[in-house]
C-alpha cells in the first residue's frame, strides 16, 4: 500500500467531517435519552432531533414538518415508492387501476428493485430510456403518462455518470397531470442546489453518508398534504410515519452535515468542478482512447466517469489502489450480479468498453495539487494493462476489441 491516500470515491461514501463527529459524540453516552420520553434527557434528545430536522429542511428549502428521518437512501426510496403505491392502489376503480409508475432505466437499484418488486403485485412500471448523456426526454415522459399513473420517480442526478435530470420540468409535467413526483436526490443534496419548491418536487430521498455525515441515516421530504402508507409500524415515532426509536446521534450528524453542505455549497461546487475539469481535460488529452461517459453540461460538479478501451475496471482499481488512489468502476466485477453497469448499458456503451470504466467522485478533502499525480498514475496503469490485453494491438497501439465481439453463448451465460 502506498503511503499517499487520495480518496476519490465520495459518491460511494465519504468520511465523517470532524465537526459533524464532534456534534454527534455527546449523543452516544451523555445525551443518550430516548426522544420520546418526558424527563430532561429525553427532552434534550427531542430538541436535538428537531434541530436536525430544521437543518435538513433548510438544505432543500422545505418546512421542518415535511422531513422524516430514515436509515438512509435505500429506506427512503422504499418508503416513498411502496408507500405511495399502497396508498394509491386503494383508490382503484373498475375504470382506473391506479397502478402505474414511471421511472427510468438508470435509477439506483433502491428504486429499480423496488419497482420490480411492485410489478410482482400487479403494478405496472414504465422505464424511460435516456440519451447518450444520461438524460431523459421530456416528451417520452409526457407520452408515458396514463390515467392510471400514480407516481413519477426520477432521480435528481445519477450516481454513476453524474447526469442531472431536468427535475423542475419533470415536476411541472407531474403537477399538470396531478401525479406525485419523487426524486432520489441522494447524490444531489448538498452537492448542487436542491430546492423542492422551485423544482416542483413532492417527495425526495436523501442520505447522510454521501455528504460527510454518518452511515445508516437519511431522510425523506414529504410535501405537506401528501399522504402515504406506512411501512414500518410500531411506537409511532416520526409522527407515525416511521416507527423505531430515533437514531439520535445519526440524526444529529445528518443535520450538521446538511448544515455544513448548505453553508459551503457554492464554494464546494467550485472546488469540485475545478478538480473535475482539470482531471477530465488532462486524462482525455494525455491518454489515448480515453473518454468521458455522460453529459458534459448537465453533470454533477463532483463526478468524473472515464472509459478506457481495452482494459478491465477491477484490474484498474486494484492497481490504482496500490498507488493510493481510490475510485470505482462499472465493470461486471464491481457489481453483485456480475452483469456490469445498467447505467452504461442505458447510455449505449458496449459491454467490452463499459468494463473499462473508472468513476472518480470528488469531496471537499481532495486537492487540485493531486491532479497531476492522479493523471500520471492512471496513464501508467492503463498503459500497463493494455500491454497485457488481447484487446489492444500493441504493435500498432490501437484498440482491437471489436474483433472479439460475439454473441454471448450458453457457456458464457452459465458463468453468471
Amino acid at each position, binding site marked *: 500500500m502506498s503511503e499517499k491516500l487520495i480518496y476519490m470515491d465520495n459518491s460511494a461514501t465519504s468520511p465523517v467531517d470532524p465537526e459533524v463527529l464532534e456534534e454527534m459524540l455527546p449523543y452516544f453516552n451523555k445525551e443518550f435519552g430516548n426522544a420520546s420520553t418526558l424527563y430532561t434527557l429525553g427532552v434534550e434528545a427531542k430538541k436535538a432531533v428537531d434541530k436536525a430536522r430544521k437543518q435538513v429542511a433548510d438544505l432543500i428549502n422545505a418546512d421542518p414538518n415535511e422531513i422524516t428521518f430514515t436509515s438512509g437512501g435505500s429506506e427512503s426510496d422504499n418508503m416513498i415508492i411502496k408507500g405511495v403505491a399502497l396508498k394509491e392502489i386503494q383508490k382503484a376503480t373498475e375504470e382506473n387501476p391506479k397502478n402505474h409508475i414511471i421511472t427510468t432505466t438508470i435509477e439506483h437499484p433502491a428504486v429499480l428493485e423496488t419497482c420490480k418488486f411492485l410489478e410482482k403485485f400487479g403494478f405496472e412500471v414504465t422505464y424511460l430510456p435516456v440519451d447518450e448523456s444520461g438524460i431523459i426526454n421530456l416528451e417520452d415522459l409526457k407520452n408515458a403518462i396514463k390515467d392510471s399513473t400514480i407516481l413519477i420517480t426520477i432521480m435528481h442526478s445519477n450516481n454513476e455518470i453524474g447526469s442531472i435530470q431536468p427535475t423542475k420540468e419533470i415536476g411541472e409535467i407531474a403537477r399538470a397531470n396531478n401525479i406525485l413526483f419523487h426524486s432520489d436526490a441522494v447524490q444531489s443534496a448538498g452537492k448542487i442546489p436542491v430546492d423542492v419548491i422551485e423544482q416542483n418536487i413532492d417527495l425526495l430521498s436523501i442520505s447522510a453518508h454521501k455528504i460527510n455525515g454518518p452511515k445508516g441515516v437519511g431522510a425523506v421530504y414529504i410535501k405537506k398534504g401528501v399522504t402515504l402508507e406506512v411501512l414500518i409500524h410500531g411506537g409511532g415515532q416520526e409522527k407515525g410515519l416511521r416507527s423505531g426509536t430515533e437514531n439520535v446521534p445519526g440524526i444529529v450528524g445528518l443535520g450538521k452535515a446538511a448544515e455544513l453542505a448548505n453553508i459551503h455549497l457554492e464554494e464546494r461546487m467550485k472546488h469540485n468542478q475545478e478538480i473535475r475539469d482539470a482531471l477530465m481535460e488532462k486524462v482525455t488529452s494525455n491518454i489515448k482512447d480515453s473518454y468521458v461517459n455522460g453529459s458534459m453540461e448537465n453533470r454533477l460538479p463532483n463526478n468524473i466517469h472515464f472509459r478506457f478501451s*481495452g*482494459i*478491465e*475496471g*477491477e*484490474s484498474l482499481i*486494484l*492497481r490504482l489502489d*496500490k498507488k493510493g488512489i481510490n475510485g470505482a468502476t462499472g*465493470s*461486471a*466485477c464491481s457489481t453483485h450480479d*456480475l452483469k*456490469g453497469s445498467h447505467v452504461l448499458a442505458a447510455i449505449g456503451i458496449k*459491454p*467490452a468498453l463499459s*468494463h473499462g470504466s473508472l468513476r472518480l467522485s470528488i469531496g471537499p478533502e481532495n486537492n487540485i495539487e493531486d491532479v497531476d499525480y492522479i493523471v500520471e498514475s492512471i496513464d501508467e496503469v492503463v498503459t500497463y494493462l493494455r*500491454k*497485457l*490485453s*488481447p*484487446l*489492444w494491438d500493441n504493435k500498432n497501439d490501437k484498440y482491437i*476489441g471489436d474483433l*472479439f*465481439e*460475439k454473441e*454471448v*453463448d450458453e457457456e*458464457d451465460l452459465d*458463468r*453468471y
Partner: protein
Amino acid sequence: MEEYSDKVKDHYMNPRNTGIIENASGEGTVGNPVCGDIMTIYIDVDENEVLTDVKFSTFGCGAAIATSSMITEMAVGMTVDEAYNITRNDVAEELDGLPPIKMHCSNLAADALQAAIDNYRYRKENGEI
C-alpha cells in the same frame, strides 16, 4: 468486496510470462468481452512434447490475470498431455484459493491452455508444424 489471497495479489500485481510468442506452436483464446474476460495463451512445444515456453495476454479482473499468470508457471516443463489435464481447480488451489464468485467467472486459464494445446495438436496433425 471479498479479499484475494496474497498469492493471487502477487500474481496480478506482478504477472509472470506476459506477452505474445511469435510463431508459437499453439495458441488459444477463450472468454467473451461481454463478461469482461478474454484470455489468450501461447505455447511452444519441443520435439519431446514438452512445453518449453508459455505466455499469456489477458483482458480481465485481478483473478483473470492471476490465473493466467499462475498457469504459465505451472505448465512450463510439463508434457502436452500433462498440461492438458490441469483443471480450473488446480489453478485455484495453486493460488491458495479464489473468492467463490471468481471461481466461476474469471477462472478460465485452464480452458485457454487446453485451447492452445488443441490448436497445437490440430496444426501438428495437419502438418503445419
